[in-house]
């Protein structure tokens, strides 16, 4: 027999091969439309979310830059005051600030042994080290617990009782403290926002990697604030310490593959047991941490 016979037989028989039913047009079209709508809304929300996080990151970076700027301005103001205060005091104090030396005993020792303990007029300078260097390094760099006075050991009793923030001496410190307080309040506002976002996410059992990344950024700032000489308030230091733990836990979620339920529960437990949110709100003035419109 010929191939033609086989071909026609094949075509005739093969018509029943996987014979399709009538086309379900409308059902398929409905699903096509739904799928396309879902894809376009998903793409739009991903774009919006990325934009929101980008703006948030930019706001945090701007806040840090402002903080650094305030620090430079304050340092410049204080250095110029030191120069105006007297030639014998300025080099010592300014040099210490830059070198980061700041122990009380070192300051006393240096001031007693240094040839520059004579003033410009050639007379012996019998002022206390604090009087010679009003913005003494120990005030800038040492963490001074509240109530204690960072006066030199050999300072007169009245000076020791006067404390670092009295009179003209305290003006620079107040400004420094105000800058620290402003930065801390701003930072606490950011942390509150992060923790609020985190709690919303953790309720779903999965935390967005951008939140863990954000927590990492805030963790760095928290550590800087803890180590700052301005962090003299023990309650604030305790709060920052607790925040450091919580932020570290959230950051470590990102290092693990997938947010584990146990980890999320531990973080929630930390938040609740330390009453972190309430303490942040108590320590944050209204409006701190507010972001520019659009973030």
């Amino acid at each position, binding site marked *: 027999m010929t191939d033609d016979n086989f071909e026609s037989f094949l075509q005739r028989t093969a018509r029943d*091969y996987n014979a399709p039913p009538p086309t379900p*047009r409308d059902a398929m079209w409905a699903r096509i439309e739904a799928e396309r709508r879902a894809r376009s809304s998903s793409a739009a929300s991903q774009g919006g979310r990325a934009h929101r996080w980008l703006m948030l990151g930019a706001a945090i970076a701007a806040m840090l830059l402002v903080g650094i700027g305030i620090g430079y301005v304050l340092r410049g103001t204080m250095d110029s005051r030191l120069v105006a205060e007297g030639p014998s005091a300025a080099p010592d104090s300014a040099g210490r600030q830059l070198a980061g030396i700041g122990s009380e005993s070192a300051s006393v020792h240096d001031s007693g042994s240094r040839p520059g303990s004579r003033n410009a007029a050639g007379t012996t300078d019998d002022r206390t080290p604090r009087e010679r260097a009003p913005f003494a390094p120990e005030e800038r760099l040492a963490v001074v617990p509240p109530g204690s006075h960072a006066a030199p050991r050999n300072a007169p009793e009245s000076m020791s009782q006067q404390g670092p923030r009295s009179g003209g001496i305290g003006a620079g410190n107040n400004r420094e403290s105000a800058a620290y307080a402003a930065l801390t309040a701003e930072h606490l506002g950011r942390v509150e926002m992060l923790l609020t976002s985190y709690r919303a996410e953790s309720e779903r059992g999965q935390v967005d990697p951008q939140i863990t990344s954000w927590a990492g950024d805030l963790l760095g700032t928290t550590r800087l604030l803890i180590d700052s000489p301005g962090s003299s308030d023990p309650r604030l230091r305790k709060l920052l310490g607790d925040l450091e733990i919580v932020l570290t836990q959230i950051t470590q979620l990102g290092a693990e593959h997938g947010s584990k339920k146990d980890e999320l529960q531990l973080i929630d437990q930390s938040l609740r047991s330390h009453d972190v949110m309430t303490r942040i709100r108590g320590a944050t003035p209204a409006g701190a941490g507010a972001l520019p419109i659009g973030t």
Partner: protein
Amino acid sequence: MDESQLLTRARAGDPAAERALYDAHVDRVYRLAYRLAGSDDLAQDFTQDTFIRAFERLKDFRGESSFATWLHSIAVSVSLNGLRKVKRLRTREADLNDAGDHEWSVRRAEPDLKLRLAQAIDALPPGYRTVFVMHDVEGFTHEEIAGALGLQPGTSKAQLSRARAKLRTALADFAGEWTA
């Protein structure tokens, strides 16, 4: 309204034009998907995916071939890729369950000609099978097949010839059916 006008309006995002294009081509796409997949669920999935992709990429369609050829090339690509995934999954399941109740096992147990033919078509290499289904089952021309599969028409003819030869060998027991 002709197809080029519909395409212009669909590119501009006109839903009515998209629906008109869908209505004009869905039957052939669905039939082809069903013939290749052998399952309504898979055929519907492949058809939907074909049109979703086509509408997403409509701006890339330059009209160098007909819209139908372009659409069928997407349909074949979607179907063959989908079937590969399904085959992988079924192989894994078969390995795990060591099940003997597969469709082809049932078919082997039946000495019926149509079932033997279905088994033989299923057993063809994917390229041969696609050309055979498109030409001998769905009635595509070699030019259409070549356009959809990115082949030369001569290659399509050669693959069809080899597919038929394999089927003839597989159906040798039933030679009387076509020699009578």
